[in-house]
């Protein structure tokens, strides 16, 4: 009965009821993010539910999920750090090493492929001088070939960090990358 086991030993509590959090002094996160985490764990019947969002938000702030982040998140959720690592290694957006300030993620799945997704990827490789999962020496850009990002009807598409860019052409990519390099790109947090 895995489904039963999934509940663990904690009893589900109703929403917002006092999920206590392990005391974290000297958080490695900014006061804003620490406060967000304090609130996040109270939203769910089981605080472990906050794990995936916490990992993602930690990565957004630090640039990757660091060793210290793993330790603090484990403490906050009363988990072993191994539990955190196990989840961390599962999700493709989570990383344990820094990426560029702007992580360029080009979709090459079927709908994008049909409309030139690989051309866009090759163009990015040439333009940035880096390959899949590599970072430019100045740390500005990193590049990833990714699976379907849900922009199939506006293909080819890519994401720079969390921003979608659609109906791409190599010329359009040049403008987008130049904008980011000049600090003028969109930047959804």
């Amino acid at each position, binding site marked *: 009965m*895995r*489904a*039963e086991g*999934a*509940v663990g030993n904690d009893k*589900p509590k*109703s*929403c917002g009821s006092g999920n206590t959090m392990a005391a974290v002094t000297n958080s490695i996160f900014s006061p804003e993010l620490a406060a967000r985490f304090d609130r996040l764990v109270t*939203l*769910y*019947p*089981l605080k*472990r*539910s*906050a*794990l*995936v*969002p916490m990992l*993602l938000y930690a990565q957004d702030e630090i640039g990757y999920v660091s060793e210290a982040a793993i330790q603090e998140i484990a403490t906050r*959720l009363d988990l072993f750090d191994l539990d955190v690592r*196990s*989840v961390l290694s*599962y*999700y*493709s*957006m*989570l990383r344990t090493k820094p990426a560029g300030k702007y992580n360029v993620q080009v979709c*090459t*799945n*079927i*709908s994008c*492929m*049909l*409309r*030139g*997704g*690989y*051309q866009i990827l*090759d163009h990015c490789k040439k333009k940035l001088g880096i390959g*899949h*999962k590599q970072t430019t020496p100045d740390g500005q850009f990193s590049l*990833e*070939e*990714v*699976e*379907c*990002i*849900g*922009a*199939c*009807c*506006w*293909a080819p598409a890519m*994401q720079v960090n*969390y*921003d*979608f860019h*659609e*109906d791409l052409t190599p010329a359009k990519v040049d403008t987008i990358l130049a904008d980011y390099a000049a600090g003028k790109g969109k930047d*959804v947090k």
Partner: protein
Amino acid sequence: MPRYVSHPDEVIVLKRRHGQGAANIDKYIELDGYKAVQNAIEQGPDWIINTMKASGLRGRGGAGFPTGMKWSFVPKQSPKPKYVLVNGDESEPGTCKDHVIFLEDPHSVIEGTMIAGLAIGAKMGFIYLRGEYRYLLKIVEKAVADAYAKGFLGKNIFGKEGVDFDIVTQTGAGAYEVGEESALMESLEGKRGVPRIKPPFPAVVGLYGGPTVINNAETIASVPHILLMGGEAYAKLGSERNGGTRLFGISGHVERPGVYELPMGYSLRKAIYEVAGGIKCGKQLKAVVPGGSSCPVLKADEIDVGLDFDQMAKAGTMLGSGGIVVLDETVSIVEFALRTIKFYQHESCGWCIPCREGTDWIKKTLTRVYNDGGQKKDIDNVQYLAENMMGRTFCPLGDAAAMPTLGFVKKFRKEFEDYIEGRKAGTPLMSEEQELAGVGH
């Protein structure tokens, strides 16, 4: 920003508020928003479920299970809290309809979640969006906060004593497998997104062990519209046993790709040639993947079929998630099949051996064929592997990888044989480096 498209053949139900700024709660209310849920509170659970059953609405995530029936399976009495879970982990290649819903009409998802909660006696709902949809998560979070501020969520909603409902938004972090309902629950419980064995089904033992209704975001967004117009009226828009309309994302080699709302049962041929403007640059149609990448391919002469769950099943494929991917004459099916299996190999969670090993060996074999090292028996091997994955895994990912693969090798066997013998069809789409290295992640 996704391009807004329209066509005279569209039957607008779900898209009614799109393009009108309905992410703003006041605009949503002006456009009859939150009327359906207030009526649902008055009418009660039996009325809601009966209306849903009459509507003929079937799950828009891909499986096509009747929504009203799904809701009726939830036990009335439960010692554990019940939950509503909205699956917005839209990851099926070719599918971007939920993207549009979250962007244009997030309150319809919130309202639908509340109605589902009223129907099954749940006081809490979760809206789970894939991690890549961060900008959409922000839109949904804002919509939820606005609904709380108006007293539409929380305690005593709409001023009704004892009627409580909470909604929590959740983000994934990149995993196709999490779109499977039980894997999504694992993910929401803070674990690796691997599927659970069934039974027990979510309606009995779901999230946190409580009875759970899990529906696709489009299914949930349809609910308020159905309650407003009436179940029978909605059903009439569609075809037999396939009520209403749905969003079809038409992509690939068409002149006007986009997300169109068409009645269930609408002709696939017309969807491609009229609604989406026909094949790009006047080329000939070669094949169609009709409902997201896991659906078996249809050849150009097989597209005179109605877009509903039953007619597509009869045609040997699936309506799936409504993502219609159109391939013109220049596409190599060998290459397309390889790109498809590369995706499933990458996304297999590894929990079940037939899926983990099967996807990997099919990918390896097709890569060998693609790189000119193929032998004729490779085609049989691919077919053998795919056939042995079918129905032998915890979740449908194994089937989702096997079904399109079988479609490609069975319907285009000659093209595979010709390729192996050096007579290659089509223009390569993958880059040189990819051919050798494969998708390196």
